């Protein structure tokens, strides 16, 4: 046993406690840093060689202490769960947002929506029944019908613009995923190198975890930590980041709502063109929105427009106009395709051509009968009329919107509780850090005291013996 081994033991204690105070300081400094996981100094007492050998007889109590590492305190399972819940949360929150916007596009119940304009149109036909000869009443029928078609166009355009916005955002997110995946790959590389060199990489790992969480929220990515310290990220079951390499993805498909039935919006791997199907996250919600939700409601609106055109046209063609000629089509399509919400227009410009009469005295010799106008106004209460199909649409939308809202609320509460648990596990508790600080400080003071004591003993031995 060396004379000075006690001194070196005390010195190692000073170093270790110093390190402890440093780490505590680091924790306190990052108490509010997003994504920071608290760190802990792992200490180990240094004994002699555990295996006795010739001329090496450890006394078992002299080596002091050493810092074996600074560990990041984190629960891998909680983190994985956090990623899943965050991905699901951003999916449901986005769906809720979409339903809110679709509902805004329809603007019901109100005095300006399609429903009240349909009512206005039927009232105009009623007025025409009362006054089949009045040019102003005939003009009013045409004007109200035009207002209704304009509103149908606008509603369709709102859905289409919602689609375009989402589509642009979708491409931007695809780029974001690629950039983030690239960053994760780079960090993986640095971490593997640091790990091999046995250098600390806690802060790099924190940064990387934050990026992985971002990918989960955006695209529902899942992750698994590898033994070399790197993390593999998976998207829809395929590998997005593996070690130091990442695979880019690409957004493709329809750029306009009307093109979706032919070419749905897709997300594919850029290298082999195979489809990526994220199950959760913002992009999954966007795919759902663009390929299912918006086309569904646009299709239903088209159905309302078609019902309107069919019902009114059939009755209109059964009647006679002011001049006694058989009525033509009232609503038609502006582009030759079957009538839908975006192309429905009023086919008649001349008010005299509105077929209000059920009777005629022959071509060129009309009557002032309003029977046909009355029959047309009766479409309002028809079980297969546009009013019925429109109300059905709104009921459907309302129920879907309510479901989305409730699901988002539940998921948000769940996500918050998981976040809180993660924060509780890996977050910084200032009380604890203060306690640690005092503990380290006291230990440091005590180690210094040990040093003084040994120094005093040596002083006695060296300076005050034998003189």
């Amino acid at each position: 046993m060396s004379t000075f081994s006690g001194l070196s033991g005390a010195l190692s204690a000073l170093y270790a406690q110093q390190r402890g105070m440093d780490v505590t300081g680091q924790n306190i400094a990052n108490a509010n840093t997003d994504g920071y996981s608290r760190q802990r100094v792992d200490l180990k007492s240094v004994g002699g060689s555990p295996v006795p050998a010739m001329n090496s007889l450890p006394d078992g109590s002299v080596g002091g202490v050493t810092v074996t590492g600074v560990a990041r305190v984190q629960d891998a399972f909680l983190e994985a769960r956090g990623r899943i819940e965050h991905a699901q949360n951003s999916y449901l929150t986005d769906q809720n947002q979409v339903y809110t916007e679709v509902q805004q596009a329809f603007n019901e119940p109100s005095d300006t929506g399609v429903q009240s304009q349909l009512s206005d149109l039927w009232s105009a036909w009623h007025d025409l029944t009362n006054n089949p000869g009045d040019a102003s009443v005939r003009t009013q029928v045409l004007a109200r019908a035009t207002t209704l078609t304009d509103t149908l166009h606008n509603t369709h355009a709102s859905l289409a613009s919602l689609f375009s916005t989402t589509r642009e955002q979708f491409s931007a997110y695809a780029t974001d995923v690629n950039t983030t995946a690239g960053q994760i790959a780079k960090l993986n590389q640095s971490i593997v190198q640091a790990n091999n060199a046995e250098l600390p990489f806690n802060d790099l790992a924190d940064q990387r975890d934050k990026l992985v969480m971002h990918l989960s929220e955006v695209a529902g990515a899942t992750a698994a930590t590898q033994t070399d310290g790197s993390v593999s990220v998976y998207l829809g079951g395929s590998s997005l980041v593996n070690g130091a390499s990442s695979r880019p993805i690409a957004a493709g498909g329809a750029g306009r709502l009307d093109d979706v039935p032919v070419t749905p919006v897709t997300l594919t791997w850029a290298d082999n063109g195979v489809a990526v199907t994220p199950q959760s996250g913002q992009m999954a919600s966007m795919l759902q929105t663009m390929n299912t939700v918006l086309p569904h409601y646009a299709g239903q609106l088209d159905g309302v427009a078609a019902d309107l055109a069919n019902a009114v046209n059939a009755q209109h063609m059964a009647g006679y106009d002011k001049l006694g000629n058989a009525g033509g089509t009232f609503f038609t399509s502006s582009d030759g395709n079957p009538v839908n919400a975006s192309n429905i227009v009023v086919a008649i410009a001349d008010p005299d051509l509105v077929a209000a009469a059920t009777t005629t005295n022959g071509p060129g010799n009309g009557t002032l009968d309003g029977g046909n106008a009355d029959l047309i106004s009766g479409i309002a209460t028809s079980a297969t009329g546009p009013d019925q199909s429109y109300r059905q649409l709104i009921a459907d939308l309302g129920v879907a919107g309510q479901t989305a809202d409730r699901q988002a609320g539940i998921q948000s509460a769940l996500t918050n509780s998981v976040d809180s648990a993660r924060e509780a596990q890996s977050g910084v508790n200032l009380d604890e850090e203060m306690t640690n600080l005092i503990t380290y400080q006291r230990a440091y003071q005590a180690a210094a005291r040990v040093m003084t004591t040994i120094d005093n003993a040596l002083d006695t031995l060296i300076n005050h013996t034998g003189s």
Partner: protein
Amino acid sequence: MTAFRVTERSIATNVLVGLQGNLSRLGDIQQRLSSGKQISKPSDSPTGTVASMQYRGDLAAARQYSRNSDDGLGWLGTADTALSSMMSQVERVRELTLQGISNGAGGSSDARLAIATEVNQVHDATIGLANTRYGDRPIFGGTTTGSAAYDASGNYLGDNGVVQRTVGDNVKVQVANPGPAVFGAGAGQLFKIMSDIATDLQTNPSNLSSDLNRLDTATTTLKAVQSGVGARYNQVTQMQQFANDKVDNLTSQLSDVEDIDLPKTISDMQLQQVAYQAALSAGAKVVQPSLVDFLR
């Protein structure tokens, strides 16, 4: 000892979530208060939304029925007035014809000529009445586009179209009768009879008795039409009353579905405000202290 670890950040997260929940509920209530509506989008209450749309459609229909009734009452009222005047004119013709009969073939031809002249005047006046118009349409002209139902010599110019008004769901009321249904046609036509009477007074008084029978038949038809008009006037009035009542009912139902209960919403808001303030002050107390405050 393994207690659930709590950190400042986790407390802060929880407090923040709670506060935001409170604030968003407060925002909801304030939004309802400021708009006065329970339902601002379909998902607030899908059934309520559909009910509200249904009520709005029904309301528009009921208002329209009331307006249609107004128009129908105009037609029927005009017809009633015209037919009443017509009846007194026809009565006059009947009296004159009786005078002509009692004068007989042996009576003074001058006297009969005078009577014939008056009958002719009444004939013209009744044709004027038969051309009574509501708005710009002759009410006894069916659905004619012309401006008169009869020409000066009593020929029918209109058609047999029926003018109807829808005054309730599937309730259509005929508000005008075409001329032939009112005044008869051919030999039994009122104007024809009158001019025959005028002619017979001058040339063939012995025919006057049969003319009188024809006139009575025509009068019976006229009376029947008039009482029909009166009955339909009543019907339309009742339907209009019904439609107006329905407007009131639907308006209140719509308000029940759509509008907020003001006292309830205001007290909800007070409660929510108290809850929010309590959460705020509790949050401020919980988040603040730490061991740092108590160390030297």
